[in-house]
């Protein structure tokens, strides 16, 4: 949409990534009129690498041990979020290259395996389908690991998908439902106006009855600028990703490590995507993230250490994207202090949780009872 924005609309969704787009899609399915405003094009989701995370990521547990109780609070949502992706593929009649092949978190020492054992026990209590495998059991289902791997935690609920296919299908869906999509448009401020809002953008002001903040880490500043100011302590995590050229099917699982930062998986294209939390640099808050050589070296060399045969593959591209982290949980629902304002930040694994989180927020906006208890994720918990 390159022309002027509408003067007024029912709902403005700020952020056109997977969450904002899906909120808009679910509301448009019910006949509501919406405008999605996105500073970039496809927002953060354009950089996602397609892991469907379920088990607690050792990276977050290590980085933010104080968040572990919150991570456990949201954990039961994860397998449901993965199942919801599958439902969405069905209802959109789209091919997401979605594979529910399970995830392996590998260990290189008895200590690491013990850590996984403790983690798995807790996860089982919270409803996840996990088990600990020794090396022989691992080789039976994943005969490609290097000599240093002693065992792994298998989480049957995990999988992967190709975000490029998902984003394209979701975009087609919402455009077909009549959602207006304004890309390359920034929001300067949101003022309350009558019973609604006046959203000032780089392409004019739009009045709307309701506003959804689905701008990832950008939500923090938008919320802080409201009257009254709303505290949503979302921070951007600039992360590094790599992709190789194609090879024959080799790695069916989503692979992680108990003590090192990595995700490793193979797309249907045959390409292997290597990521897992190595930092990118972001010189200006809110600006573009740039890849760093240190992360490329560390991430790629770790990948061949875990799966040696991919050492002969070539990396053809790297990129950086922004993950959003809050307190180990998502921020979902209505903001009580400002009627008509909603927040939709999914949580640590934003893409995995994206469509289900959007569904839950859309349900609240449609005055339906969400299918899950979202009270732990209420936006006012930081006040």
């Amino acid at each position: 949409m390159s022309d002027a924005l509408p003067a007024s609309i029912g709902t403005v969704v700020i952020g056109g990534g997977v969450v904002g787009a899906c909120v808009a899609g679910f509301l448009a399915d019910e006949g509501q009129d919406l405008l999605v405003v996105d500073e970039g094009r496809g927002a953060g989701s354009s950089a996602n690498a397609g892991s469907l995370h379920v088990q607690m990521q050792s990276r977050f547990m290590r980085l933010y041990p104080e968040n572990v109780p919150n991570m456990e609070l949201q954990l039961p949502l994860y397998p449901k979020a993965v199942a919801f992706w599958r439902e969405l593929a069905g209802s959109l009649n789209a091919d997401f290259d979605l594979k529910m092949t399970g995830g392996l978190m590998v260990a290189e020492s008895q200590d690491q395996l013990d850590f996984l054992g403790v983690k798995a026990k807790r996860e089982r209590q919270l409803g996840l389908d996990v088990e600990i495998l020794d090396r022989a059991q691992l080789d039976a289902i994943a005969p490609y690991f290097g000599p240093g791997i002693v065992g792994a935690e298998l989480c049957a609920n995990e999988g992967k998908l190709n975000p490029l296919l998902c984003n394209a299908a979701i975009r087609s869906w919402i455009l077909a439902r009549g959602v207006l999509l304004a890309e390359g448009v920034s929001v300067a401020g949101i003022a309350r106006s009558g019973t609604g809002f006046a959203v000032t953008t780089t392409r004019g002001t739009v009045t709307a009855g309701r506003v959804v903040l689905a701008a990832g880490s950008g939500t923090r500043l938008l919320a802080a600028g409201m009257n009254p100011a709303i505290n949503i302590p979302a921070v951007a995590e600039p992360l590094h990703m790599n992709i190789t050229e194609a090879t024959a099917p080799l790695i069916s699982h989503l692979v992680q490590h108990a003590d090192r930062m990595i995700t490793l998986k193979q797309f249907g294209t045959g390409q292997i995507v290597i990521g897992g939390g190595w930092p990118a640099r972001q010189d200006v808050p809110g600006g573009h993230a740039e890849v760093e050589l240190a992360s490329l070296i560390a991430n790629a060399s770790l990948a061949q250490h875990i799966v040696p045969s991919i050492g002969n593959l070539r990396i053809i591209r790297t990129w950086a994207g922004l993950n959003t982290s809050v307190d180990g949980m998502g921020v979902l629902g209505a903001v009580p202090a400002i009627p008509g304002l909603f927040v939709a930040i999914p949580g640590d694994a934003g893409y995995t949780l994206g469509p289900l989180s959007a569904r839950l927020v859309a349900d609240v906006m449609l005055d339906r009872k969400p299918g899950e208890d979202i009270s732990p994720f209420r936006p006012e918990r930081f006040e």
Partner: protein
Amino acid sequence: MSGFVIEFEGEPVQARAGESVAAALTAHGIRGFRVTRSTAERGVFCGMGVCQDCLVEVDGVPGKRACMTVVDRPLSIRRQRHGAALAPVSDAMPPATIDELAVERPELLVIGAGPGGLSAAIAARKAGAEVVVLDERRSPGGQYFKPVAVAGDDIAPPDAQHREGLALVAQTRAAGVVIRSGVSVWGAFQRLEFAATSDKGETRRYLPRAVVVATGAYERAWPVPGWELPGVMTTGAAQTLWRTARRLPGRRVLIAGNGPLNLQLAAELHGGGAEVVAVVEAAGSAMRAPAAVAAMALAAPGLVAQGLAYQWRCMTGGVPMLHDMVVSAVEQRPSGLAVTLAGGGATRVLEADVLCLGYGFEPSNELLRALGCRHDHDGTRLVTVRDADGQTSVAGVYALGDCTGLGGARVAAADGTLAGLAAAAGLGHAVGPELARLGRQAASAAQRHRRFQQALWDVYRAPALAIAQVPDDTMICRCEEVRFGAARAAISDGLADAGSVKRATRIGMGPCQGRYCRPLLEALIQEATGKAPYETSGFAPRPPFRPVTIRDLAGKP
């Protein structure tokens, strides 16, 4: 003749020591190298390590560019099949950190050993700077000099252009410059950090105090149905086969494009024994632009004489010159490539074994863009913003030659001297009166050769590619095998920027990193939306700028 017997798919092939695998196989009539996802064969296209279409497996190691792999021992070569299985590996290397990479901290790093880079290195060294030159090819000289890499009684000796290159390389070495050949610089990061991997698989980090980027150019795409067929290659690729390996690209060669390089190639291949079916020039005859010819003669009489000599050799050799015509389609027939030419409302079909396309160049500016150097888009291509001494918008980064916009080898050499002196001065070295005089001479030579280049472009002025006329079933992205129709469909779905079309269609996601499709996609977007391309409208620069093997990042076992 010294040589080796190499194997291709189990069949023996006699190769010359020092030639590329691509040259050896081409000389034996082998044109199909990599096999794509759709099981189509691809051959040598760019001949300079850019397009990734000549990939082969060498001694079991996948992903080797045949054009960049030198025959220095008996080799076993196989076609690189898309998505081929990996051989099991048991010797995992430990995870590495950046601190384990070898680091070099040259005072001045020069990237590219063509006429511009070498001239910059000489000038900076003379002013007292410690200079390291990195170059991807096995021998320095770049795409202009293309040094002869083979030896033997049956090998035509170096010509004047070769000898000029050898002299420049010798002068560079004599000045005390370190030249490292076979080293690919694939990463450029903030604060002048560079990553490079050698053809032996060793990765190093370079942390220079200043850098001169002289990475040249590669040929633009000429997208017509069939331009991805084996046997269709760039003029530069055919010239590399002949000038470096003394191998002909084929028996019957059709050369088509716009500009004097096509004429030079025709003269060289004719002299080497090929049947040059025709030279097809998009521009009219030079006789239609007498003022421009006169301007060229005034600016650089030697170059005009050289051009006339090429023309004379073609004429006396009976090579037909077809003006005001372009290639509009290529088709593989059992007897060879059927090439359709169009112009003036007429078409005709010529048959050849090899079609060379030389329709102009595109700057190799990815390192400069990654460093954050500002660029302007002149409507056709990006031009690096820099001052008369080559200083870019980023402190300590100098740039010159075809990677900054196009100007040819002579302009690059002159600008190289200026940039080398400026870089040395910026590093605190005194530029004495003798060097200052050298600088003034270079400045005036640069000016003169720019006038020549401008007049040359006037002589060769031809209609631009009519992007609207390219049929939907024509390949736009060679790597991912995406056709124009898919690009047009995505744009008419409302995707109005290159990045979004890339993510929706996979255009530009292959190993060449969008070098050929990106300008085509931008032209399609401009045609559909009226939005002219600008500095950042193309694909963002993403390292590695050459695919890099994971093993080569992990150090040695």
